[in-house]
């Protein structure tokens, strides 16, 4: 059965490219438009991996990670940040919040798939 990835980003074109790349590799992709939408969808569905942006309206990526880690069912689900932010300070904050990895935009589809495969198979 195909694994499900939750892609959270306020940019429609970015979500479209993430979905396009991951679906081509055989994954199901659920899309969310901001952190709050991502949190709601994570509660509704069983998700194998979360891929989230940082700077979003309503709820940012770090807050989403902290909220997900607070839910029993998401304590061990891998969460990757996909963001324009590349500073060591932001990466450290992401790691402290519970992120498992940091990808700086723009992403290369082949490398994204390699990372996803490494993390969830």
């Amino acid at each position, binding site marked *: 059965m195909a694994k499900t990835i939750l892609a959270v980003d306020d940019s429609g074109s*970015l979500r479209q490219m993430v979905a*396009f790349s991951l679906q081509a590799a055989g994954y199901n992709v659920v899309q969310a438009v901001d952190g709050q939408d991502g949190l709601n969808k994570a509660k509704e569905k069983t998700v194998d991996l979360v891929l989230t942006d940082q700077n979003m309206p309503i709820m940012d990526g770090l807050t989403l990670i902290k909220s997900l880690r607070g839910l029993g069912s998401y304590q061990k689900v891998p969460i990757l940040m996909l963001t324009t932010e*590349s500073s060591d300070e932001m990466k450290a904050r992401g790691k402290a919040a519970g992120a498992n990895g*940091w990808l700086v935009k*723009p992403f290369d589809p082949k490398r994204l798939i390699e990372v996803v495969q490494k993390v969830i198979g």
Partner: protein
Amino acid sequence: MSRQNDSPVPELGRVLAALCENGSQHLSRVESDLVQTMFLLNEAIEKIGQHFTAIHQAVSEQQAELELLLAQTGLPAQLADSKQLEVLRDLREVIGDEVNSAVVGLQFHDLTSQLLSRTISRTNGLRDLHLTFKAHGEGISAGHEPGAMARQLDEMGESLKLCHIDLGSESCHSVRQQHLGCGEIELF
């Protein structure tokens, strides 16, 4: 004419108010143009993205049909080792690489959108500052005692400080990409 009427203070207030009003109008136009630019850019990239995925889908189906056809009909012996098969295999790789590059390229819309959004927000902030200063300028009159003028100047200083704090809070969100290549990956 009294000494009070000769004071440059009211004129200074009027000039400040007029300058801020004019600046505010210019910034409104800049903001409106930026919003329209972002709207058109979003529409264009969304359409390009849709057409791109549709083209990719069609090419993938075409490849699959071709492979099915070759498998069903079998290859003529004279074609089995021909360069045409090699060309077909190479083309598949070329298509894959081009698709990858296009996906990376389309993501720069996200980066430019972030920059445009921030510029709109800063334009907005600058316009608010102009409007605040306009109100201060209109409030300046010849009858003001030095103490009242000092308070007015203090208030203007506070407005500037607030604007500075707003800019500081935004500076941590940055788009620093300088090249059209993909970003780094780090697993914790």
